[in-house]
């Protein structure tokens, strides 16, 4: 196991550059996490949110909604016209306006589909929080109606039920994350994704950087012509050498996988479902293979460790910017988006979008997940094949 041991020894001696990447990543992750904590606080705070209700229906239900929201928040009187609403939202006099359309109570009572409408300050979690509140209220109310209560009783029972359990219910709902059926829900709010989503979003960058800078130099060292000759004339068989190198690479990969996934579990274990975590294990493994493939190929192309370091930077930053690691894909122009499709990171990020929020296995869009992971594995294979081709070409040169 001489070669395997030397592989690990050299890997350990390369640690300074790896540590730098790791520290940078940790800082980013911790910063993101603490930001996340703040927004969580904002989400669950007891602080009151200013809102208004336009009861165009003039119904008891409209008033009940206002009363219900007033339990925890502050009702503000605003004139019922577009201009006034916009000004109030702009100056943050209110964060949220509920519109109870005409005929709403009747529709609810008769079990027809009619939605409340709203205005809200975009890009804050406040609007999301209020959506949850209302969604929750309507669900509960409808269930009492379905259970043959008249409107008055249903309203009363709903208020009683919710008064005590508002917060608990909300937390569960937020973890469920998918709030739907609100026709006026303006734009998706970007900080409504759980923190682990961002952690895993940065993984491609850190994997590329660490694997290439950490393992590239090892492959270069073992591939140096003269060292290779000396190993080839020795009594160690080619097969044993190959197996030991492979074990070295596997160990390296396993350590990286282990560190980051354990870290993810320690930081976000409470918010991530087991199913999602398993999906992430599979996804990070697929991406690790891509990184190993790139490193394998680069190990044959470059003969100097410094060059390898530069290559690591170019590839990790380049793929990360293009593939949507640092900048969300929606913000990229269509040309860049087309180029982005050529990067493995793009498919990783897509898979991340598929996984996020998955609670149980049946929630998972299996087809999309398999497709994205499959493409990553193909990338890995392609890089390994290019590596082999370069190796063969170099052999013929020699």
């Amino acid at each position, binding site marked *: 196991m*001489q070669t395997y041991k030397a592989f690990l*020894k*050299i890997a350990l001696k390369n640690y300074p550059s790896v540590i730098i990447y790791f520290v940078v990543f940790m800082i980013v992750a911790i910063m993101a996490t603490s930001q996340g904590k703040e927004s969580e606080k904002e989400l669950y705070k007891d602080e009151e949110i200013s809102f208004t209700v336009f009861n165009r229906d003039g119904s008891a239900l409209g008033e009940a909604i206002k009363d219900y929201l007033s339990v925890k928040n502050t009702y503000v009187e605003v004139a019922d016209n577009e201009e006034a609403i916009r000004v109030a939202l702009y100056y943050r006099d209110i964060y949220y306006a509920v519109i109870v359309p005409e005929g709403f109570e009747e529709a609810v009572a008769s079990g027809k589909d009619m939605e409340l409408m709203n205005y809200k300050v975009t890009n804050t979690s406040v609007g999301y929080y209020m959506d949850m509140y209302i969604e929750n209220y309507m669900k509960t109310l409808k269930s009492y109606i379905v259970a043959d209560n008249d409107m008055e009783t249903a309203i009363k029972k709903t208020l009683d039920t919710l008064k005590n359990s508002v917060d608990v219910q909300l937390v569960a709902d937020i973890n469920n994350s998918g709030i739907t059926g609100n026709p006026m829900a303006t734009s998706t709010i970007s900080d409504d994704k759980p923190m682990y989503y961002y952690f895993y979003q940065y993984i491609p960058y850190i994997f590329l950087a660490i694997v290439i800078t950490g393992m590239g130099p090892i492959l270069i*060292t073992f591939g140096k012509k003269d*060292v290779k000759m*000396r190993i080839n004339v020795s*009594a*160690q068989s080619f097969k044993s050498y190959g197996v030991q190198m492979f074990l070295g690479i596997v160990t390296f990969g396993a350590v990286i996988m282990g560190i980051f996934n354990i870290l993810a579990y320690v930081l976000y274990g409470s918010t991530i479902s087991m199913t999602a975590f398993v999906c992430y294990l599979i996804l990070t493994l697929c991406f690790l293979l891509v990184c190993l493939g790139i490193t394998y190929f680069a190990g044959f192309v470059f003969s100097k460790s410094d060059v390898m370091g530069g290559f690591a930077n170019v590839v990790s930053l380049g793929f990360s910017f293009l593939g949507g690691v640092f900048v969300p894909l929606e913000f990229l122009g269509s040309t860049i988006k087309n180029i982005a499709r050529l990067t493995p990171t793009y498919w990783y990020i897509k898979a991340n979008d598929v996984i996020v929020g998955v609670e149980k296995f049946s929630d998972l869009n299996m087809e999309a997940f398999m497709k994205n992971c499959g493409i990553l594995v193909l990338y890995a294979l392609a890089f390994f094949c290019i590596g082999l081709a370069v190796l063969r070409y170099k052999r013929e040169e020699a």
Partner: protein
Amino acid sequence: MSKVVEVENLVKRYKELVALDHFNLEIEEGEIFGLLGPNGSGKSTTISCILGLLKYDKGSIKVFGKTMDASSYDIKKDIGVVLQNVAVFDELTVQENIDYFCGLYINDKALRKQYVEEAIAFTGLEEFRKFQPKKLSGGLLRRLNIACGIAHKPKLIFMDEPTVAVDPQSRNKILEGIQELNKNGATIIYTSHYMEEVEQICTRIAIMDQGKNLAIGTKEQLKDMIKTGEMIQAEILDAADDLIDKVKELPHVYKAEYVDNHLKVHYTKGQRNLVRLIDFFKNNDVSFGRVYSELPTLNDVFLEITGKELRD
């Protein structure tokens, strides 16, 4: 004595270039065998073929009486190699490097530890055991290169120009070390294009050029093969042409020339040439300064066999 290496009619081509052209070689146990040839003559190629590192086009190679190829691990375990270029891991220390390469042959931990220590002592690297290769001077690096090749106590050692770019002091240490390895029982194949080194340590020498083995023998045998004997130089202020003609008449002289106030007299074999020349000067009233005699070198041998100097 048994033959350790037998190379027969070896032909190796690199595309159009014929690097080895029906090359033959036999090496006996216990020799320090020198492969002497100018740059590009095929020394490294020969060694690579014998070691199974290169495929060859024709011929056969046997080591320890067995046919050698890339997977002859039972033969390889008794071979040590010190290649022309330093081949060590930059990331590992002196000791770790020696241990790694020794470990490719020796599995037993305790034995390996002992061997590594002996190799460090043998190459005088005790103070540097924790150094990384890039902190070593050129001479020390060469010694590390040697230590990595011989730590496992091989019976047959190939050394491909192990003293290139090494200062004379280190070089002498290395040469002494090679002789010691040989005394301890190793057969050594040594390549160089420094004839002094080869003359100093090798028991037998092959002279090669352009992939051919041109001559083989002990240094005395090689020098006997050529017609050049000694060359005597005398400082003479001013020598008339007829004097030079008379010198040419002397026994064993095959060439005499007068350059820069020096009379150079080349002899084939023969004895008492110097005494006879001085007598001749006295008899002819020639006043002369310093007189000295030079014995033929391997360079003369090489010059006569190939028509060119050994060194560029």
